[in-house]
Each structure stands twice: as structure tokens, then as C-alpha cells.
């Protein structure tokens, strides 16, 4: 029991993560990969009620095809089908090296009860020094009571030479547990880069 003024609160961190800190679950490095998936229950990957929130960190995602989009989908059947119903929104802010700017709500990539992919970036470049990095949070994916919220901040080198940031948020509209997440490109492969999965309570 802890106290703060007149407040008293009692909480217990689970034995699996007593400190309440981020715990690295798995890092996967792409190599000309058509997709990168994290599926609960094998090869050290957990995506269940072990943690209340999960964080995917994208580090220097380098792609094969110019002007394509990183995207994700979720599964409720252990990765057999990636088609979770989602509703979400998409904002961008961007600036060229010459100083032209864009700040827009981008309804083109919104989802409204769609089982299709959630786009995470717009038209990333594939030049040798071009890549994208960012993070995606997935909250309480194992809940059988609530929808599963996700929030994404992804920044990339745009094919038209912009510093391009994307802010995406939405929810998987299901009360089934989401137990697998897949990332891929709208066309081509993820040639290089690492996606790390962390858990936190």
C-alpha cells in the first residue's frame, strides 16, 4: 500500500515484469522479406495477457520499391488470417529540404470498419540512404471485453524528398483477442531494418 496525501493505492506488478518497465520480447531483422509477423506463442514471442501494452519499434526500415507504404494488419486466429476490422485516422506533417511544408489530415488512408491494412506511411523512398523509423503501440490486445487501440508515429524519407511524419490512431474493432500482427509493404519487400516488440504492464 502506498499513500500520496489522502490517497491510498495498492497495486502489484506481475511477477513476469515486477518493475513495470519495457521488456524486449523479440527483435526481427528483415532481409528481402515479403512480410514480418509477430505471432503469439512460439519462438519467444508473446502477444497475449502477459503484458497490458505492446510497443513495436521500427528501426531504419529500408524498402525495395520506391514510393510504397508500410502497413499492418492484425489476426485473431494465430496468424492464419490477417483481417481484423479496424477504424482509424491518419495525419501527416512534412517538410522538404527546401522548406516547403505540409500539415494535413489525410482521409485517404482512414479506415472505417475495414478488414484491409492500416497504412502507416505515405510513399517512402527506397534510395540507398532512405529509410523509415518509428513506433506503434497496441493496447491490451488480449482483452475480450474492449476493442484494441493502436497509436503510431512513423517518420520516413518520402520518395519526393520530404521529411515525412505520420500520426495514426485507431482501434481493432473486435472483442476477440488479437494474437498476431503482420507488417508488409504495399508493393515489394522490406529489404532491411529491424522491428522490435516490447511489452509493458
Amino acid at each position, binding site marked *: 500500500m502506498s499513500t500520496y496525501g489522502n490517497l491510498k493505492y495498492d497495486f502489484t506488478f506481475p511477477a513476469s515484469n515486477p518493475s513495470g518497465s519495457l521488456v524486449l520480447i*523479440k527483435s*526481427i531483422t*528483415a*532481409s*528481402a*522479406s*515479403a*512480410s*514480418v*509477423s*509477430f*505471432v503469439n506463442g*512460439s*519462438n*519467444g*514471442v508473446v502477444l497475449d495477457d502477459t503484458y497490458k501494452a505492446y510497443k513495436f519499434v521500427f528501426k531504419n526500415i529500408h524498402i525495395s520499391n520506391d514510393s*510504397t507504404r508500410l502497413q499492418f494488419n492484425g489476426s485473431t486466429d494465430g*496468424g492464419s488470417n490477417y483481417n481484423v476490422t479496424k477504424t482509424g485516422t491518419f495525419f501527416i506533417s512534412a517538410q522538404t529540404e527546401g522548406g*516547403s*511544408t*505540409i*500539415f*494535413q489530415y*489525410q482521409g*485517404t488512408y482512414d479506415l472505417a470498419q475495414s478488414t484491409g491494412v492500416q497504412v502507416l506511411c*505515405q*510513399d517512402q523512398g527506397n534510395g540507398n540512404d532512405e529509410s523509415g523509423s518509428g513506433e506503434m503501440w497496441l493496447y491490451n490486445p488480449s482483452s475480450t471485453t474492449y476493442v484494441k487501440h493502436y497509436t503510431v508515429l512513423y517518420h520516413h524519407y518520402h520518395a*519526393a524528398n520530404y521529411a515525412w511524419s505520420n500520426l495514426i490512431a485507431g482501434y481493432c474493432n473486435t472483442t476477440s483477442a488479437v494474437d498476431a500482427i503482420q507488417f508488409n509493404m*504495399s*508493393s*515489394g*519487400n522490406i529489404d532491411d531494418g529491424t522491428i522490435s516488440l516490447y511489452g509493458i504492464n
Partner: protein
Amino acid sequence: MPRYKLVNGISIQLTAEEEALRDAEEQAWADGAFDRAMADLRQRRNSLLSQTDYLALSDNTLSSDMSTYRQSLRDITSGLTTVEEVNAVVFPEKPEA
């Protein structure tokens, strides 16, 4: 060339069914190239227009140069029929306000 997916770090060759599905996705992506290019062009055009919207308010007289500039931006999507034409578009120089 066969494709491979990474599942929990394990590289697995796509099945014939998965390859066919991915081929269809790639084809759909290729077929949408012109629409995406136009959407991107409109996005950048709209951003440039919005940066001078305040000059077009009713209590301000728009200069001839600015009026021409804004009309050029509005017309910039006219007559474009290919991705190459869209990518070759050069935005007009913004005049002094």
C-alpha cells in the same frame, strides 16, 4: 523469384496460394499508380493554396500576380493522363504577397 515471409524471425517461403494473393495485391497497387500520383499532386497543391488563402479574403484585394499563381495551382491537374506527366509537373513560383 519466390517470396519469403518472416514469422517470429523464421524465414518461410510463401505458399502458392500466398504468392497468388500477393501477386494480386501487387497488381492492384500497380493499377492504382495514376490515381495515387494525382492524389499526391492534389495534396501538395492544396497545401500551397492554403498557404495563400488568407490573401483571398473578402477584405483584401488580391494582386494580379497572386491571382494568376493561385489559378495556376487550381489548374495544375488539368490534362494529365499518365504517371510520368504527373511526376513532371513543376509548381509555379509563389509571387510576393
